[in-house]
């Protein structure tokens, strides 16, 4: 299953890189990689180990022309936070999960801009970044649906065993 996360990550990068049109669009595409990382972190933390997550996020930073490392670092912290809450979120419903994800995404975006501002890095304009955050939030249920139904990555239920027969 860990291999599948790599495949999924490359597939999302692939969709971002498709040379369909070089026109600048008023709307911004959602950050699918981060969305999937969140959804998988809540459901099956064992499928997204830290090293793998770090590598994939760094790769997407490099390929999508972002300042390399920072967005990956913040995304990694969010995923870690979600993984530590996974047990609690497992018991609650989707609304609670969505609310957590929204809080994390908004916080991350603000922190990202503050850090870039402090280090005097040229920033993407506020409008499209806000739109990207919002579209990522709106796409999150779709991402979760795909994760749950199409890929079969579900939350653990009491009594689940991992591959070697241990509790998770």
């Amino acid at each position: 299953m860990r291999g599948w996360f790599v495949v999924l990550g490359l597939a999302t990068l692939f969709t971002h890189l498709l040379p369909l049109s070089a026109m600048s669009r008023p709307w911004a595409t959602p950050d699918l990689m981060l969305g999937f990382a969140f959804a998988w972190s809540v459901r099956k933390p064992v499928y997204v180990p830290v090293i793998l997550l770090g590598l994939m996020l760094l790769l997407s930073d490099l390929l999508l022309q972002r300042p390399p490392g920072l967005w990956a670092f913040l995304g990694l912290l969010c995923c870690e936070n979600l993984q530590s809450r996974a047990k609690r979120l497992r018991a609650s419903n989707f609304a609670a999960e969505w609310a957590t994800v929204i809080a994390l995404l908004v916080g991350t975006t603000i922190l990202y801009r503050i850090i870039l501002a402090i280090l005097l890095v040229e920033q993407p304009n506020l409008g499209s970044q806000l739109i990207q955050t919002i579209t990522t939030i709106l796409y999150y249920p779709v991402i979760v649906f795909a994760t749950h139904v199409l890929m079969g990555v579900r939350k653990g239920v009491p009594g689940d065993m991992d591959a070697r027969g241990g509790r998770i």
Partner: protein
Amino acid sequence: MANNRSNNQDYTRPLRRLILVVVSLVLLATFLVWRIDSPRVERFRAQVTDRIVPNFDWAMAPVTGTVNLFRDYQSYNRIAEQNQELRRELRKMQSWKEAALQLEQENARLLDLNSVRLDPRLTFITGVVLADSGSPFRQSVLLNVGARDGLVDGWATMDGIGLVGRISGVAKNTSRVILLTDASSRIPVTIQPSGQRAIVAGDNSAAPPIDFIESPDLVRPGDRVVSSGDGAVFPAGLVIGQVAADPGGRLRVRLAADYERLKFLRVLRSHPTEPVTDTANILTANDGKPAPENGEEVPASE
């Protein structure tokens, strides 16, 4: 292995934490190194792109083709009215063609009289667009020609009609073209026929605004915008587009290049630019002779 797993978990947790800290530090270090020594990391980024994106190519071509097929299908719906429109335009074009032919003959005669030798060094390499920037905040495309084909940073890139952007970042097999619409793109231009010098500054919108026009009232929507060759950024006289005014009254360029369908781009081999060795004297590089100021008394031969 088979003994108590809950014990095992107690061992793995600190290890996990350690890995998290190490990975976070590596990511942060990458960011800081990028901030301090950006060119080195950008070269690394170009190499990573060079290794990965060409592998996507076999899949990208069919997917892009299919999507474009569907888009084209939508436009077939209006084919009848398009046909009418094209006929009308064709009729208009024919009169223009006559005019153009006459002008061409006249031009050939005049060139002959002057025995002008056109610059033989302005040749080009054609490349295919591999991928776009993938990010809504950056306007760039990736070409399948690179250092292997002799590309150098800073060369101008055109589609069949107009200027598209400049090469920025060359790896072995690929190179990145920063489009004119990117927020970091600044191109010195001349606006014809008034001859005003200005700068086309990308701002992530489809029509980049024109900055630093000396007397904006001399410039009208519909004027031609061509590259001016100032600062040896680009060869002079490359077509960029037409002036248009947006609803706020700001002057923008409607680009001549078809950004909707960038597929084949030609990269113009420019003359080697002056190597900058002294940071203080960049502005007066052409020794002694003062650099032409904002285009007031620039001789026509410029």
